[in-house]
């Protein structure tokens, strides 16, 4: 029977189905971090349960780590206590931990792929909604709550109902200045924040397969922002080339066996989806958000809408009031004081290269604070090896140490009340980057140009 990519992987991970429609679903890799794991470890301890498969758990500290002076003890006592708790729990249960100071430390969704832990055909979970990032490799990866973190610790399984299947196809060549971030911001602006609720999304089409692995990760990362349980892309030569030789990827004969299996992972030509959307790549232009959810995106040259559907009016009006914008207003010329380049969406080496290539020999505007937080220690090391750190420093950008940082502002990196920040992260929710902060989501290229110009501009005028 014809199957979608999602069905092939899902069906291969059903331990048993129970009456009523739930599956006992097997998890290959469980990623944990300091924020959503402590209560799960306590749950396990309270029930006197062992960890069922500790070798399938990988831990990192990322959400509330400082991005300066990581060699020193963490200043904030609550953050320090949470990171210490992770360290103690991992030591107690003998779980592999990439803690502060480790050369593999970084944002959980950046280190999984870069170390080759993330592989096609896998099922992966983490107590973090952006686990959907790993779907870029043709894996079923999704975020879970802390009770489920405990369930996976106890049984390596979850009790789940199978989501519906959606395919989003983007065909054609993209215009100059249009990146993976623009593709996904465009799709979310069309579908809305709840448009894919209840679905697992497969991205397909020539504009998707033309993306690098880093671009694919950016696309899958933001699937959750339209309500999808996760996003995925069928693995291909781009995927295999990326994985080959990475630390945790299969080697030698195992690599050949894996490859033979991975090549079977695609949606059969006659497989059916519950819902399909088609978009033309050449209709997509550089994007930016104006509101307080990621669905409130527009082409950077387009005005803020004047009207919205009646079932969105309350949040639209509340949003514009919070952001200090008017319906129908253009964002072009809007002065910006902060630029944040980082997060599990856009903190990879390719993102840093994009920024460095644009700002080389230029200077950021004086009134702009431009912060770059690499996604991992490996990205930071690579940026230095390639001399990007020097280019960025000369342009007035500050390259920090890795972590989630001002994406959710659990550490010291916060945007002040009322300030505007063009951010490469994934969420522009009220207060997300600090109480009262105002976030405009955009690509690393848009962020770099904004930092130099000090205001929102039509970036296509700046491309050579």
């Amino acid at each position, binding site marked *: 029977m014809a199957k979608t990519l999602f069905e092939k992987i899902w069906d291969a991970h059903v331990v048993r189905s129970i009456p009523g429609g739930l599956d006992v679903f097997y998890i290959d890799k469980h990623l944990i971090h300091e924020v959503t794991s402590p209560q799960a470890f306590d749950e396990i301890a309270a029930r006197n349960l062992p960890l069922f498969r500790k070798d399938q758990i990988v831990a990192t500290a990322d959400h509330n780590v400082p991005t300066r002076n990581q060699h020193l003890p963490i200043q904030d006592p609550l953050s320090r206590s949470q990171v210490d708790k992770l360290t103690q729990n991992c030591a107690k249960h003998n779980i592999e931990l990439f803690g502060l100071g480790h050369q593999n430390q970084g944002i959980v969704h950046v280190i999984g792929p870069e170390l080759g832990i993330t592989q096609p055909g896998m099922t992966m979970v983490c107590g973090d909604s952006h686990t959907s990032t790993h779907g870029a490799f043709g894996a079923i990866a999704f975020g879970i*709550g802390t009770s489920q973190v405990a369930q996976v610790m106890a049984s390596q399984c979850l009790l789940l109902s199978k989501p519906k299947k959606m395919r989003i196809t983007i065909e054609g060549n993209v215009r100059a200045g249009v990146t993976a971030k623009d593709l996904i911001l465009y799709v979310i602006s069309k579908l809305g924040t709840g448009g894919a609720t209840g679905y697992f999304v497969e991205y397909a089409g020539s504009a998707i397969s033309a993306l690098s692995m880093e671009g694919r990760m950016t696309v899958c990362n933001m699937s959750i922002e339209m309500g999808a349980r996760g996003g995925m892309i069928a693995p291909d030569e781009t995927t295999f080339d990326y994985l080959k030789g990475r630390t945790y990827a299969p080697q030698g004969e195992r690599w050949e066996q894996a490859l033979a299996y991975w090549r079977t992972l695609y949606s059969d030509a006659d497989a059916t989806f519950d819902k399909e959307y088609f978009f033309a790549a050449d209709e997509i232009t550089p994007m930016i958000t104006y509101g307080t959810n990621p669905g409130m995106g527009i082409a950077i040259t387009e005005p803020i809408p004047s009207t919205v559907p009646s079932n969105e009016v309350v949040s639209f009006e*509340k949003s514009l009031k919070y952001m200090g914008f008017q319906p129908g207003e253009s964002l072009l010329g809007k002065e910006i004081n902060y630029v944040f380049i980082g997060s599990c969406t856009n903190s990879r080496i390719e993102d840093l290269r994009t920024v460095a290539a644009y700002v080389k020999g230029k200077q950021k505007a004086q009134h702009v604070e431009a912060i770059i937080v690499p996604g991992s220690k490996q990205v930071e090391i690579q940026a230095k090896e390639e001399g990007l750190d020097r280019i960025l420093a000369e342009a007035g950008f500050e390259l920090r140490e890795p972590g989630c940082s001002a994406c959710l502002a659990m550490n010291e990196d916060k945007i002040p009340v009322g300030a505007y920040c063009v951010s490469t992260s994934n969420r522009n929710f009220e207060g997300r980057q600090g109480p009262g902060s105002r976030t405009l989501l955009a690509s690393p290229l848009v962020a770099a140009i904004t930092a130099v110009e000090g205001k929102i501009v039509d970036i296509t005028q700046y491309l050579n």
Partner: protein
Amino acid sequence: MEKFEVLRSSAVPLPIENIDTDQIIPARFLKATSREGFGENLFRDWRYDSDNQPKSDFVLNDSRYSGRILVAGQNFGCGSSREHAAWAIYDAGFKVVISSYFADIFRGNALNNGLLPLQVSNEMLERLFRQIELDPETELVVDLVNEEFFVPAWNEKVSFQIDPYKKECLINGYDDIDFLVNQKEAIEAYEKNRAWAY
């Protein structure tokens, strides 16, 4: 987990769409390592100003509204997977959230903590908002056993659906860990026979 069968209560209305979990519990309050105490920071930045004074225009500070049922706009609980959002709502005294749809992860988190996410049609949601505005003391009866909720003021019963396994868990106060740990033999058998092991 506390058992849930039937709840009679007035409701608190929050007619805003797309309420994300960052609003329910902002990230800076996620640094605790236990499950307790999140209720005091529920909707923190909507509920208090920057000097920690209650904002008079927010519904949780409005003495006309009270009860153990929160009625919220469509697409409730989108965004972050933080289960702290469900803990905060429950800790603040709510046992039911009514909306016209819920984000998937929030729905699961709620059910795992004895908080019932009750989905109604958009029309019903609008009617509920109008009714509560008209009479803030309107009583709602949520009957999980019979999968229906009853609005005595309308003399009307409305059925809702819930997964039978999840219903049994809520009624009995069970959770998934017990069930999954009891599947150990089946899980080990699966591990031995699967096509590709990572």
